[in-house]
């Protein structure tokens, strides 16, 4: 369909010529290449130490998350502190064990509401493969069909030390992230 005259002139105003646009594009690319590494490093460094997990308890592994936040293990020194406020402040889901057929749509809903970038830790045998409940009629065989898990933390329940190691692995992974 033919564009009306008024819109055409408006487009000319913001896009004065293809040659200039291409030049700006190339310049931008070169600039991004130059600052990608240092900027990416700075941004990732900021992300590593402010992981805010969602408070969503899906199974009994939540007891060990509570123990991991206790003074003896103190997850907070790694920058992990459960966010009791809004999902918009969260960037990490720790799937705390069993995901069953009623919880799975809610888990996905929570994940979809979180802003990018977001990370997922699958905690416990149940979140990895279904664990003890592999033959139960109501339990999903692992959380991988619902959420893309970054780190799997094995155990039933994992000891707090194991969870902390999983979080450190996730931090390693974030360090190597590319800026998009």
């Amino acid at each position: 369909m033919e564009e009306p005259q008024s819109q055409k002139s408006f487009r000319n105003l913001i896009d004065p010529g293809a040659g200039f646009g291409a030049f700006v594009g190339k310049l931008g690319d070169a600039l991004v290449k130059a600052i990608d590494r240092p900027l990416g490093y700075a941004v990732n460094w900021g992300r590593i130490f402010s992981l805010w997990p969602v408070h969503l308890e899906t199974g009994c592994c939540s007891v060990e998350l509570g123990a991991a936040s206790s003074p003896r293990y103190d997850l907070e020194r790694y920058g992990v502190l459960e966010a009791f406020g809004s999902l918009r402040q969260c960037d990490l889901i720790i799937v705390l064990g069993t995901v069953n057929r009623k919880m799975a749509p809610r888990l996905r809903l929570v994940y979809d509401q979180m802003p990018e970038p977001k990370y997922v830790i699958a905690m416990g045998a149940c979140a990895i493969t279904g664990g003890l409940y592999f033959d139960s009629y109501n339990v999903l065989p692992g959380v991988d069909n619902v959420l893309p898990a970054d780190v799997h933390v094995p155990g039933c329940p994992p000891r707090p030390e194991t969870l902390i190691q999983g979080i450190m692995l996730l931090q390693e992974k974030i360090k190597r992230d590319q800026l998009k």
Partner: protein
Amino acid sequence: MSSATDNSAYNNKDNDASLDVNTRSTNAQLPSRSFHVEQLEDRDRYMTLSIGPQHPGSGHMRIIVVVDGDIIVSADPDVGYVHRGEEKMSESRTFVQNVPHIERPVIHDSSNILYSYCLAVEELIGLQTPERAKYLRAILAEIDRIQYTLYWLAILGIFIGHSTMFMWATADRELFVELADMASGNRITHSYIIPGGVRNDLPDVFADKAFKFIDYFERKRLPEYHKIFYDNPLFRQRSEGVGVLSRSDAISLGVTGSVLRASGIDYDVRKREPYDIYSDIEFEVPISKAGDSFARSILPIYDIQQSINIIRQCLAKMPPSGQIRAKLQPNPRGPPGEAYRRVESGRGALGHYIVSDGTPKPYRHKMSVPSVRNLTAMPHLLKGARLADLPVIYWSLNIWPVEIER
């Protein structure tokens, strides 16, 4: 307000065998339980709130409350977020294979939930537990009761915004977790109590360490709890006179454990139907006549005191050595029959009902758990309460949501 079509759409989705969780779900697909509001005449006055499952004050369940301003008109617990079909799973495993998954519904009180299962299985098979094993069982059961109660207290602190309580209780809980770890080899899911006895003996240094930890906890820490938490005017204002459960209501609703004792009824399974060694051990059952959230919150702390006494007596009276496990044939089975045994857990009377048809697997296995009994009191107590009182009333009922669903 959602319409009937939304509901039916959800139901169809539920019936569908392949639950397609990769698609985006919208709010319209979640079930609407606000039907009782739609029937009311003046329905614009009311608002339906869904508290949970993603909410700091809900645990693993959802509470659908209808509020009129600040007053709760009705509260409807919506459970099933952790339902794992334990009872059905029991039917396809042998009596011994069942041990690990039976303790999972309440992993921080795992010994007590296994205790009653083992008592029931022993009755079915006809096993005799050795004397030393009985004491070991009681020690682990009391350690678990203490660490369960401390975890529960920590969450109560979080619910009412008292983070210090969370820090103190979880830190002190580690003492008892460490004791249990030492005895059984795992922090909270011990599988220590098995049909016929216990899995392994205590290490030599256990008694010394246990006395040390218990003394420290009783002398140094417990009095402080009263100072910082129970005598705290803010906590008292939020809990005293809130959610009063009268004696007759407590009986007719069938609540159990500390909730029942807070309403003035002296009932403890360890006293009424003593199992194993509890008949030889002296302890008191603290009760209160108030029936409010404060009484329900403070009674478990007095229970901890008694548990400490029990551990001391057990360590002193225990036979120094001996068998810890009865001999079991590979796939133990008993004559056809049924058994129901119960114990006092951290939340109240907990029983297992097992029907056997003579094979090594249970024919039917039913867990009668205290959390369900205490949950029945919740809609009753929340009606007419303020919304801000919901966390205190809910958590003082001593509920562990995973156990409700099993």
